[in-house]
């Protein structure tokens, strides 16, 4: 590891890669500002979480091995997602615990993998004080980030206390990966509760760390005609808020 | 029946493995009767324990009064019953301490014997009070029917102040001492009057057991 600039791999996550590349560019900008040498390994696809959560541990394992091989030689791996980072940090070691060849590598990678805001705040001690202060913004905790990784203070610190809080910030938004299409009605009912409490904070913008939750809520808010804008927290922190918000039309 | 017993135990043993060492570990635990973590609020003694006991019982919607001497209890009970407009037969547990109180100084005319549905008020004596949660411990016996704790709509419990202890663990120690290690048929832990929240999640008092629980702490059992 170079003392000045740690070799940092961006694990973009499939949703950001395919649907919101702006998150990737914002993340790179933040990591560089924080003093990282950023690389984007080209062979990355999906961390395997959809398969893992659907009971297909064989596919999940194959994708875990592919991802470990790709990322194992960096000082840090950073994902703009609590759930994908948790997949690597907690579930790869669990998935590969019985594998003599891969268990140790899975554990080693797990120890170097971070969710973006936690990495910026805790590891790089990123100073956001010169960044633009976001206004009327609510932070959307994602359950994986919050409960599996303890991501709670970091994004709030980076948003510099400007966050509007709802009373049920630890409640799920109803996304749940494939859950959101398997149990559409329940997923939507949970989303509506979440949207109502977000709207009640008086926020006009919701920033979140997981694109799955954001796309699900933004899609529901659009269908309901709610006046709320959804962005990944990386876009907000990097000041990249000119592009249309998630599910918003081009101006 | 025995076949099922054997089958269940055999399955457990095949999962759990050799028995001898496990038997020793279980025996040791059963013999030690060691308390686990007792919260700080369960470790209070004396005046602090008494104050907390009373405060928590009141929080749980019981009423509490304190009398200096046991002989003051009957008139205070009469006052209390008047204050809630309770009328009708008052049934005492067959406890000699209760029977010896000067009931004649009141108009209460208590009766003893089998508890009846028509009894309006039941009077029992608690083995101890647990300050940690404001809980009464009552043990059943020849002079302590547990039906008396539930059937009459008003339940009055007398408790000697010296019998207020810190925790449930302290209560178990007292119970074992007072019953010579022979567990009574029924031990009731009572922390307030009966209530239910089964209709539209709203609390209503007097679901099946007593609507009123009055605890009288007797400072000196003279």
């Amino acid at each position, binding site marked *: 590891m170079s003392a000045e600039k740690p070799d940092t791999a961006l694990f973009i996550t499939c949703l950001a890669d395919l649907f919101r590349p702006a998150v990737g560019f914002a993340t790179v900008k933040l990591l560089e500002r924080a003093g990282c040498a950023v690389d984007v390994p080209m062979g990355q696809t999906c961390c395997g979480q959809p398969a893992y959560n659907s009971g297909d541990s064989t596919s999940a394992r194959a*994708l875990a091995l592919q991802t470990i091989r790709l990322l194992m030689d960096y000082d840090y791996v950073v994902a703009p997602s609590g759930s994908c980072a948790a997949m690597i940090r907690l579930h790869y070691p669990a998935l590969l615990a019985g594998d003599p060849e891969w268990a140790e590598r899975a554990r080693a990678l797990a120890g170097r993998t971070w969710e973006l805001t936690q990495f910026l705040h805790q590891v790089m001690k990123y100073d956001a004080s010169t960044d633009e202060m976001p206004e009327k913004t609510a932070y959307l905790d994602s359950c994986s980030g919050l409960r599996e990784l303890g991501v709670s203070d970091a994004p709030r610190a980076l948003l510099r206390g400007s966050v509007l809080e709802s009373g049920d910030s630890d409640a799920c938004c109803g996304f749940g990966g494939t859950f959101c299409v398997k149990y559409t009605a329940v997923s939507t009912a949970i989303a509506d509760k979440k949207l109502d409490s977000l709207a009640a904070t008086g926020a006009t913008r919701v920033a979140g760390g997981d694109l799955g939750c954001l796309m699900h809520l933004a899609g529901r808010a659009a269908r309901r005609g709610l006046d709320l804008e959804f962005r990944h927290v990386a876009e907000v922190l990097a000041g990249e808020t000119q592009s249309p918000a998630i599910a918003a039309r081009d101006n | 029946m025995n076949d099922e017993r054997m089958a269940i135990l055999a399955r457990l043993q095949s999962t759990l493995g050799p028995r001898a060492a496990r038997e020793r570990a279980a025996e040791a635990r059963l013999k030690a009767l060691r308390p686990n973590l007792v919260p700080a609020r369960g470790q209070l003694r004396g005046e602090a324990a008494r104050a907390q006991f009373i405060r928590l019982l009141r929080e749980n919607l019981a009423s509490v009064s304190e009398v200096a001497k046991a002989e003051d209890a009957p008139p205070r009970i009469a006052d209390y019953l008047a204050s809630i407009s309770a009328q009708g037969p008052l049934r005492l547990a067959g406890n000699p301490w209760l029977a010896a109180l000067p009931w004649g100084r009141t108009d209460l005319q208590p009766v003893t014997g089998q508890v009846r549905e028509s009894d309006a008020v039941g009077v029992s004596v608690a083995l101890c009070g647990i300050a940690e949660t404001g809980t009464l411990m009552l043990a059943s016996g020849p002079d*302590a029917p547990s039906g008396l704790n539930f059937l009459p709509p008003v339940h009055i419990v007398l408790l000697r102040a010296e019998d207020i202890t810190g925790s449930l663990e302290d209560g178990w120690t007292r119970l074992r001492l007072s019953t010579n290690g022979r567990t009574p048929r029924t031990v009731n832990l009572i922390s307030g009057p009966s209530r239910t929240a089964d*209709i539209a999640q709203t609390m209503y008092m007097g679901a099946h057991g007593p609507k009123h629980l009055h605890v009288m702490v007797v400072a000196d059992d003279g």
Partner: protein
Amino acid sequence: MQRNPAAFNANAAEALRNADMQSALRAAEQGFGAKRRKSIERLPEFDALCDQAAAIKDHVLDHLDVYLERFEAQVFATGGMVHWCEDAQSARAKILALCQSVNARTVTKGKSMVSEEIGLNPFLEANNIRPIETDLGEYIIQLADEPPSHIIGPALHKTKDQVSDLFHDHHRKLGFPHRVEEGEALVGEARAILREKYLSADVGVTGANFLIAETGSTVIVTNEGNGDMTQIFPRMHIVLASIEKIVPTLEDAATFLRVLARSATGQEMSVYTTFSTGPKRKGDADGPDQFHVVLLDNGRSRMLATSQREMLRCIRCGACMNHCPVYMAAGGHAYGATYMGPMGSVLTPHFDGLARAQALPFASTFCGRCESVCPMRIPLPRLMRELRNTAHDARLTPARERLWLRLWSWIAQRPPLYHRLARMGLPLLGRLARGRGRFAWLPLASGWTRTRDFPAPQGKSFITQWAARRTPEK
């Protein structure tokens, strides 16, 4: 509402259309959550107590055979009987035989989820014995002929108005001609009717929250006092309990009591906690002449041998469902089984078979709130995930879902193909969106677009753009 776990999705949709159910759930979510939080804030040692309680349960499970035998010996020593039952059918038959041995006509019942698990009431009725539920919630749903929708609030889904109607229908012929609406009056009516039942019943059946190996005691925890009257007045008291309810000593029971009520209702102690040991003693003023404990296995000893054994730590407090977004949207009946919410989604596949119940372990967003509030530290998401694995490997999950998943995983394992498809597909999707930023409908995505717009991709994938950006430099 179908009493079938396979119908979870349809049942949930029905519950979501039921405004009464939704307002009851909303009240429950706020009430249970706030009360639990408040009671825990008042006890700094709460987390340490949970750790200890979970460790005690693990110890019990490691020594379950020894403790069960000790419990049995203590019940015998105090004049009671223990009956071991492999399954629901055996337990029902045992209880019927016991009732018949005293020519029982009516049986009063304290609240017992194990009684629901074995389907005791319909069985007794079919054998001309009348079971009378005495817990107010259970009484309400018995009148309504419905199963419980929550393990500690069985009638949680009923409005006061519905209770008024039910009571009016059933109490008219019992000397209560007028429909009452006040909650207090409704409670009073049930109280008056059930009082007479307690005193005239031949047998009282209760469940048990705990069985104490040290003393042979069975423990019930209630707020109403019904469980006590159920066991004090009849000649015979039958306790129906499953084998994992054992705790070693009275001291250990104290530890569980400190976490049970707080997790369940947010009370520091429930109003009545009762330890029952054997039948009435010589000279006792009251109590049953006979005391029987029916010990039910029903798959639990088999569960102990699996990686799902942590589920046997469960003390049925209901905190997992009280904090579950899925339960709080779908309600308890949607699960189509005795147990509901996260704990039910783990238990039901063991009781009903995974083939019948595979939908339940998938009925979770894996938000993890259940695990975070479970006083027994049960890793509910992990247990549900294991069941998902088993269901997937046994091809019990819908074939279409497995196909999509395999296709996605197959592509994702071939990065060049994955990125080529992204390069081809995304511009196409982008053009389809035509600047609207979202789709109201997409082919093959109706599961999403039925209720939500689907956000359009911003353009080329990040990897595509990053590669293009870097190439000229090289």
